[in-house]
């Protein structure tokens, strides 16, 4: 560690190129069957056969016990030299593989999650940080040695070493490593945009950052842990479903366990017949219990969290995602959320004695080198309204003055003219410094624009004030459609703003929100949420400022923008890396999808049992009552082939449904009744019908290959 007072400007830190390139390419979703993931998952499926791991899943535990029991009896039979050993071995084999397939489903989901996590981990670079010492000097330490409360100094060209809050300075930051968005964002001390994430790069100016999380505890780390399935708690919904399928398992266990006495009675009554063997009884049990949903349940949950992350949202718990599925109301901020926040020029307003085209000309010249959307819109407006084309300024002696957060203005020194545009008070001060006077009309025009929700940009030429550019807050594109989608899902949108009611009404009408609250203080937001919740509604809120924190914490689902403060991010239960306020639409869709997928697969699993009964019952009792062969509607070859075919179908259907479990059942924003009807028809009716041809086919294959 060397102690330096000024960092050398030409030293570039190391970057893990691979990781940065991967994320900038936007590789967030992997193909369904990536070979490397497959290999990992297959290995894990056998490792997970350990009874202690299987015991967490009651249905699969019953299957494993059954498989072990069958194996024991088959071995006993083999030693005693009884017949039908080959059949017994096959049954035992397929029973074990039922458990393996279920493990595979879970392992696949976890492996995909781990792959995402690994990609995320690559963004954690081992940069050197400039830690500020009490004597105002800096020391170089590796980023992994930084602790909460350390202050680091970061300047243009260098990577930010860890999550933190800007305490001094303003800078523009490239966050594409985290968000995939290449346009730089402004980060400044105080205000709502003070949070920075480790791994992003400072592009201009310099800032002092106070580190707010220890290594291993950043948001990224927490999300990685969640996605890897290590810190996964069962959500209330999952627990309820688990109880249901455990209960059904008990019922079917009962139905099967009482069969031997009935069989014994029937054999005694008829005088002939063979009692069903352990292998056949276990087969019936395993076929009846909902193994399909039992095996796929955890995979559905893990894959759901994975999908949330693919949408660039860091969710702190699975419960938050499921809660979003039931949200009734969404609260949205106005500035920067519903509106662009980057304003667009719509009007040139000159002061007395100034020609409008002169104002437009000066405005355009001073904005030619301006990279900000505001500057570009000024150039475009001048071109459209006054046909002033972007000139070739090379022949003139032009020196562009770039925008700086300190001066709050930008412009150009051209042919002796000093053209400037910027905040009204900054320009007024500039003009006074040049020796000119500020007309009172300037303040009047600026105030008028502000009251209407716009931003005034004053323009000056040396000591003369030329006029004001009216920047208007534009509603984000597609907002109407997205809010309409929300409405179709049954979610009411409410806009909350500190603006005056007139401006708010105009923007609300334009954006298409269902309701709005104007001149709202942070306390008003909190009270509104509490009022909605008292009426039994679930409230979601998106916010970015520290003043949104209490409301974010009170809301049932709090989505903090990544551009927001650390306090907001801690208060909410999700962080949107894209800072898109209507991202909630995707989150709600995933939340609902989780529930729909679980329900559909449970229905399918239970509906399958109908066909399996028709396969196994005649096979089991045909020796006692040959009349029962009339139940063999699939025309299965023999009792052995029937039972084996049913068991094989039961195991194979788990693997066949893994892609569906990982991708989730398709969700369309229609009413609950319509969706339920559609899914009942597909998975309920389909579940009853599909096993019939399936078991018939397997039976034919078994007979053809002489396996039975």
């Amino acid at each position, binding site marked *: 560690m060397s102690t330096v007072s000024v960092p050398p400007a030409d030293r570039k830190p190391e970057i893990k190129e691979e990781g940065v390139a991967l994320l900038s390419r936007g590789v967030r979703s992997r193909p369904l069957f990536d070979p490397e993931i497959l290999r990992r998952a297959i290995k894990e499926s056998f490792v997970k056969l350990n009874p202690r791991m299987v015991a967490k899943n009651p249905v699969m535990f019953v299957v494993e016990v059954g498989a072990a029991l069958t194996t024991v009896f088959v071995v006993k039979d083999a030693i005693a030299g009884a017949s039908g050993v080959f059949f017994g071995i096959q049954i035992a084999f397929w029973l074990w593989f039922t458990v393996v397939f279920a493990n595979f489903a879970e392992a696949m989901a976890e492996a995909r999650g781990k792959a995402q996590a690994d990609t995320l981990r690559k963004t954690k670079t081992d940069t050197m940080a400039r830690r500020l010492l009490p004597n105002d000097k800096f020391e170089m330490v590796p980023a992994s040695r930084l602790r909460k409360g350390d202050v680091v100094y970061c300047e243009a060209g260098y990577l930010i070493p860890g999550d933190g809050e800007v305490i001094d300075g303003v800078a523009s930051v490239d966050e594409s490593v985290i968000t995939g968005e290449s346009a730089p964002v402004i980060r400044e001390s105080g205000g709502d945009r003070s949070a920075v994430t480790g791994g992003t790069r400072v592009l201009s100016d310099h800032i002092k950052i106070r580190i707010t999380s220890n290594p291993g505890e950043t948001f990224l780390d927490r999300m990685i842990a969640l996605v890897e399935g290590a810190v996964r708690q069962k959500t209330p919904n999952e627990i309820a479903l688990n109880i249901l399928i455990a209960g059904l398992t008990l*019922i079917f266990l009962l139905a099967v366990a*009482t069969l031997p006495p009935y069989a014994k*009675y029937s054999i005694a009554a008829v005088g002939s017949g063979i009692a069903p063997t352990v292998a056949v009884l276990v087969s019936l049990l395993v076929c009846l219990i909902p193994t399909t949903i039992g095996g796929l349940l955890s995979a559905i949950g893990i894959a759901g969290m994975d999908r949330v992350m693919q949408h660039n949202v860091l969710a702190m718990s699975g419960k938050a995602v499921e809660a979003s599925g039931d949200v009734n109301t969404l609260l949205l901020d106005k500035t920067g959320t519903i509106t662009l926040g980057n304003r667009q020029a719509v009007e040139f307003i000159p002061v007395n004695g100034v020609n409008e085209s002169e104002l437009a000309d000066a405005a355009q010249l001073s904005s030619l080198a301006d990279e900000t959307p505001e500057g570009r819109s000024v150039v475009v407006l001048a071109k459209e309204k006054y046909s002033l084309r972007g000139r070739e300024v090379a022949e003139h002696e032009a020196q562009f003055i770039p925008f700086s957060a300190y001066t709050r203005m930008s412009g150009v020194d051209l042919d002796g003219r000093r053209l400037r545009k910027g905040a009204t008070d900054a320009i007024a001060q500039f003009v006074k410094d040049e020796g000119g006077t500020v007309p009172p009309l300037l303040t009047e025009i600026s105030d008028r624009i502000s009251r209407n929700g716009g931003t005034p940009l004053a323009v000056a030429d040396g000591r003369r004030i030329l006029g004001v550019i009216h920047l208007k807050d534009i509603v984000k594109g597609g907002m109407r459609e997205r809010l309409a989608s929300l409405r179709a899902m049954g979610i009411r949108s409410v806009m909350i703003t500190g603006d005056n009611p007139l401006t708010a009404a105009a923007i609300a009408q334009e954006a298409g929100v269902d309701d709005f609250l104007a001149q709202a203080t942070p306390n008003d937001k909190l009270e509104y949420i509490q009022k909605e919740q008292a009426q039994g509604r679930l409230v979601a809120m998106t916010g970015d400022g520290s003043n949104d924190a209490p409301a974010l914490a009170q809301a049932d689902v709090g989505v903090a923008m990544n551009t927001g403060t650390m306090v907001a991010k801690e208060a909410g239960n999700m962080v949107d890396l894209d800072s898109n306020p209507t991202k909630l639409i995707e989150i709600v869709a995933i939340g609902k999808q989780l529930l729909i997928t679980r329900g559909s697969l449970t229905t399918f699993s*239970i509906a399958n049992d109908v066909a399996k*009964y028709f396969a196994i019952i005649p096979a089991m009792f045909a020796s006692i*009552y040959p009349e029962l062969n009339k139940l063999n509607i699939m025309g299965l070859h023999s009792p052995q082939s029937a039972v084996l075919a049913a068991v094989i179908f039961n195991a194979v259907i788990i693997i066949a449904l893994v892609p569906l479990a990982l991708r989730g059942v398709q969700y369309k924003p229609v009413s*609950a009744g319509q969706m*339920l009807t559609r899914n009942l028809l597909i998975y309920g009716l389909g579940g009853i019908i599909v096993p019939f041809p399936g078991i018939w086919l397997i039976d034919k294959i078994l007979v053809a290959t002489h396996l039975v």
Partner: protein
Amino acid sequence: MAIIAVLATSLVILGFTALSSVAPFAKNGYWNAPGPAAANTNNNGSHGLSEILYAYSSGAGNNGSAFAGINANTPWYNLTIGLDMLVGRFLFIIPALAIAGSLASKKLVPITSGTLPTNGTLFVVLLVGTVIIVGALTYFPALSLGPIVEHFQMLNGKLF
């Protein structure tokens, strides 16, 4: 709660039928004079199993009648059908009341497009379908050795 209710009823019906179809008793003993519990039936074979199954099903869910002449007035049958009634009925009613109570204390959720309508064809189909499927899946094995096989035997001309 729902699981307890369904489980309780199935447990007693299927469990006691299983017990009675194999329980051995001494002839002219105290518990069951005719001998083994299965000997109380009027008919043999599948019809006999139906008689035993019916005795317990009716005790738990219907009017407690007997069917086809089973002699249910022995200490064994009296005791078991009595327990059958106790568990099958009360361990069904009490959980159902508990569910109602728990729902009553929950706060009302406003009706939105995401609410499932309880007054349409969809709900009726869903309800009836669930009842039939869960009921059928639980009792099908027992039924297949009783009434179902008897039906097929009847078609073949064998009567009881």
